[in-house]
């Protein structure tokens, strides 16, 4: 019985783990990117600017009282004398050209340290390989070349972005509301996604015996899968992409008041994902047609916690 009495003591000793020790709260930085493509030669996306601006405001209010910095890079277009939309030019302040985005991300990556968090949000077009379609650097809003193909120099691809973010010491949360953005949710070394139908049993054991390591550096929350589009409502005075609309709701944001009206006690990447799945105003299941989008999230053992009160 002496051994039995020792058991609770051993248990208590083990439970006194490192999590109970206080830590310094890190700095949080948000880089919001949104492109409406007004004045450009591609389909205009009116909701993206609302998405970028309001996510930025919501995060600023969510992290009020903490070390927080926010930065917006948006392409809104400009009205000419005739009241027509024109491209404002890549040299205008805050227009998200590829060069400017890489420069700003590079700046924050060198400024942030272990224990900090960099949140990157993107609302705009995405190519079939997931590449983000950024603003042209010149004064013309030409995204297509004369031959009809897209200008590759305007694209920010998955590999390019992950290579850029690889040396970042801080944690990174990448939130993407664009077509085919599931390409950024790369399967990591330890778990498998079960969104699509697959041989879970076989694939999970095969994954166990691969050499691919788990790397927690970049958490990705995407609006849709790697083979599907991401949508926004076709009409309305004040619209959001379906994904970002639900994301804002999850954060506690109220559009009419332009403020956070709900103080959530707990918000994490997993919680946001689950909330969006349940509340986005478009089906998540494609069995009955193409009118759906299924958000995706990075796998692995960790959940990224934004708020824990």
């Amino acid at each position, binding site marked *: 019985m002496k051994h039995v009495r020792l058991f609770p003591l051993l248990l208590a000793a083990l439970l006194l783990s490192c999590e109970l020790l206080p830590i310094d709260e890190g700095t949080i930085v948000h880089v919001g990117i949104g492109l409406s493509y007004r004045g450009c030669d591609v389909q205009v996306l009116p909701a993206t600017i609302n998405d970028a601006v309001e996510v930025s405001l919501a995060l600023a209010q969510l992290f009020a009282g903490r070390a927080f910095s926010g930065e917006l890079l948006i392409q809104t277009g400009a009205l000419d004398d005739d009241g027509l939309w024109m491209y404002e030019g890549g040299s205008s302040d805050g227009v998200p050209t590829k060069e400017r985005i890489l420069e700003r991300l590079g700046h924050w990556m060198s400024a942030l340290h272990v*224990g900090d968090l960099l949140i990157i949000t993107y609302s705009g077009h995405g190519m079939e390989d997931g590449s983000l379609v950024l603003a042209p650097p010149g004064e013309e809003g030409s995204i297509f070349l004369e031959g009809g193909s897209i200008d590759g120099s305007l694209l920010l691809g998955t590999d390019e972005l992950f290579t850029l973010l690889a040396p970042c010491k801080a944690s990174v949360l990448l939130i993407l509301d664009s077509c085919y953005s599931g390409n950024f949710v790369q399967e990591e070394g330890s778990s498998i996604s079960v969104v699509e139908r697959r041989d879970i049993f076989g694939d999970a054991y095969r994954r166990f015996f691969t050499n691919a390591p*788990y790397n*927690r550096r970049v958490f990705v929350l995407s609006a849709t899968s790697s083979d599907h589009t991401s949508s926004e409502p076709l009409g309305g005075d004040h619209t959001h992409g379906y994904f970002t609309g639900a994301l804002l709701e999850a954060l506690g944001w109220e559009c009419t008041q332009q403020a956070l009206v709900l103080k959530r006690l707990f918000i994490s990447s997993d919680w946001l994902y689950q909330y969006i799945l349940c509340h986005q105003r478009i089906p998540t299941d494609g069995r009955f047609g193409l009118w759906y989008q299924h958000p995706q999230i990075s796998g*692995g053992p*960790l959940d990224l916690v934004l708020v824990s009160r």
Partner: protein
Amino acid sequence: MKRVVLVIILACILSPLTAQAGGQYYSLSASFFPYLSIPHYQDDIPMRTAAGGEVSIGVLGFQKSHYDFSLEFRYRGTTASITHGFYRARGFDSVGADLRFAYQLREKLALFTTVGTEINFYRNVDSAFASFTTSFGVELLLIQSPIYTLDLIFPLTIHLRKEITALQPSVGLRYRIFPTWGGRQ
């Protein structure tokens, strides 16, 4: 996968028919534990703490002299860990199977060990992973009747995940029912 399930079902049905009278039993176990996960990857802290519980159903158990062998199917539920910094370990649900071997040291004391494997499903995210489990521990006989026994069990379980090794110092109860003969010898 279907073939594996079929073989297990057939074994569960046919094995009791061939068992020696008195040796076969069914069991139900439940235990609770802190779940202490030690990452193999670079993490902010050396260990993350969660909690959980598991229930096992033994469909194929035999007892012979001082030895005891069983095949058990198990559900394990593990909570998310305590938040530390920007992270917490995800909670998950597991379903799996174990082979269990026990050796009776004294009238009321036995040692046991298990080996098993399971598929785990992270909660809230559509993601799964495979893992292996081994445990060892002691069981103390609490109640014995001609047709059943109730034991207090103290397993120390090691959950072998690809990127994490987790320890589960557990406490629980194990109920065994002997349809053809009673009790521990």
